[in-house]
């Protein structure tokens, strides 16, 4: 329940109405003004101002009204009626001023209380909403983290998939490149072993020392031809083995893709490697023209850059509707290594052109690539402080221009 029993609009007792005046002083002043003893009592007689005892003799009693009701009496033995009335009026004025003060202060308290309660309510609401926001912010951070890690892992998987795709392409090309020499080396070795068989048949006659049988065996085995054919057969096989060795060494440039260490390379070598690896796919669609100028050695992730060249070469090969030309130029311009890979393929439409470096953007049919090839290429060049730009015209061709700042070995 309410602790304060009084409200600004409560009825007030005489005691409350006169609480602002000093009782003894007022009693003394009244007595002097009236020239006779006077006292103020509450309507029910329970309270007497200044505890003055009841008056004796001819006592007059005047009601003291407040708020339409008699709340007390002025008692006095003073004879002058007008004087007594004036005293009552003065008392009522005091009471009125007391009421004003009382109402104003009670109202003030009430207002302060509601304002305070309102303030507290708002404060609590604020704290509650702050807590809500905090919880939200915390869970938000968590959720963002989750999302980021999901996206990151998806990204990684796609990169991996893209890498696998290019490795797959690479493997197909390489298999073809290696299959060919391996095929004729194998066939040559078969022929060689039949030649050895023939040498053995002649050798048996040589042991007999019979020159006629030796000559006849020589004839039968056709050693004249074999002696002529064998060296070229071996030479061909040696060349084939060399070719395989070269392809394997070119492949090494791609095998260290995940290697974090930088190495110092001549990018022309990387370009040639990429051409060799892609040779199979290029040769069937286009003529390759290399115009490689002298390049300063570059400190870089060579495996990554090889991948870029291979990627662009394969793209160029794929862009050929009919047999065309792919040209790679390299050189130094404005203290930058510049590599241009141009093709006379189908070109890229103006609507598509701005998006080709966007992740997951691909114009090839679904499944043939993730669309990360050019994105990864650009990322690799950016990581080297370089840039890649493209210009293209439909049915004329496309030019990719790579620029790399020259950075040599650590001083």
């Amino acid at each position, binding site marked *: 329940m309410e602790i304060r029993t009084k409200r600004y*609009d409560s*009825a007030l007792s005489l005691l409350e109405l006169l609480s602002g005046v000093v009782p003894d002083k007022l009693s003394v002043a009244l007595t002097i003004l009236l020239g006779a003893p006077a006292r103020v009592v509450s309507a029910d007689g329970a309270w007497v101002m200044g505890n003055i005892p009841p008056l004796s003799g001819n006592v007059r009693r005047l009601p003291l009204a407040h*708020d*339409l009701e008699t709340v007390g009496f002025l008692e006095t033995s003073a004879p002058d009626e007008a004087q007594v009335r004036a005293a009552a009026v003065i008392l009522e004025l005091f009471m009125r001023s007391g009421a004003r003060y009382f*109402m*104003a202060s009670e109202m003030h308290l*009430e*207002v302060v209380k*509601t304002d305070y309660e309102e303030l507290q309510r708002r404060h609590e609401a604020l704290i509650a909403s702050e807590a809500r926001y905090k919880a939200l912010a915390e869970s938000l951070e968590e959720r963002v983290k989750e999302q980021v890690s999901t996206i990151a892992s998806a990204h990684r998987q796609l990169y991996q998939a893209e890498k696998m795709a290019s490795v797959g392409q690479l493997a197909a090309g390489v298999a073809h490149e290696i299959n060919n020499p391996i095929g004729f080396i194998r066939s040559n070795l078969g022929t060689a072993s039949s030649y050895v068989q023939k040498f053995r048949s002649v050798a048996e006659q040589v042991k007999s020392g019979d020159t006629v049988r030796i000559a006849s065996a020589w004839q039968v085995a056709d050693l004249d031809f074999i002696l002529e054919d064998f060296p070229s057969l071996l030479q061909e096989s040696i060349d084939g083995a060399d070719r395989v060795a070269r392809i394997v060494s070119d492949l090494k440039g791609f095998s260290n893709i995940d290697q974090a260490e930088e190495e110092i390379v001549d990018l022309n070598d990387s370009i040639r490697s990429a051409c060799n690896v892609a040779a199979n796919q290029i040769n069937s669609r286009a003529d390759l023209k290399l115009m490689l100028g002298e390049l300063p050695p570059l400190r870089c992730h060579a495996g990554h850059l090889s991948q870029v060249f291979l990627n662009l070469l394969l793209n160029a090969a794929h862009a050929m509707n009919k047999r065309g030309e792919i040209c790679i130029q390299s050189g130094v311009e404005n203290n930058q290594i510049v590599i241009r890979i141009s093709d006379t393929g189908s070109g890229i439409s103006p609507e598509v052109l701005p998006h080709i470096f966007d992740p997951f953007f691909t114009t090839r049919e679904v499944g043939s690539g993730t669309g990360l090839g050019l994105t990864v290429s650009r990322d690799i060049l950016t990581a080297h402080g370089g840039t890649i730009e493209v210009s293209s015209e439909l049915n004329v061709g496309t030019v990719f221009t790579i620029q790399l700042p020259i950075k040599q070995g650590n001083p």
Partner: protein
Amino acid sequence: MADLDETARKLTLKLVYYGPAMSGKTTNLMRLHDLLSPDLKGEIMTLETQNDRTLFFDLLPLGFRTPSDWLIKLKLYTVPGQVAHDATRKAVLSRADGLVFVADSQRSQGINNAESFQNLEENVRRVGLDFGTLPLVVQFNKRDLPNVLTEEEIRQRWFAAPWPLVMASALSGMGVRETFVKLLEALYPVLDKNFSLSKVHGTDAQSFINAVIGINAVTGAPLGNSH
């Protein structure tokens, strides 16, 4: 709700003049003080600041005795209209038995009126009263000024509202008593229901109104504006 004191045989009612700042609430009370002559009439107590804006409220007490010798007191309050004094308005409004909404008829005051009326509705609910059943009279004051809404416009706008509408010019007193009488008319049925004014206290609607405004019930002088 009305304050019933069985031992003192006293019923105290609270009537509140509400409205935007400067619409004429205090003026209404001052005119009522002059116009009414009930058995008992106190002085207006004004709690105002120096610039004569109502700080807390004005208070005019009126009263009469019923044939059953009960004292019926009506305490007329005004609220401060300034937006900042909402807590005071709420305190004054609490336990009110009836309301007069004093609107300013000037065209420029439309928004102030509307906001104040909305504030009234909100505060009535906040202090736990029922806006639907609380006796209420709407007064459009300052009819004497130029650039006021026409009575037709006002009646059109308030057409759907259930409360009595009174046109007034509190400065001259026009419509002030009529407003108050309309409020007493709306108030009486509620009081009669709760306190059996008619049966127990021998006070029917007409004698209740007559007693409050001070018309001799016996001579039966007609009601209406004194102007």
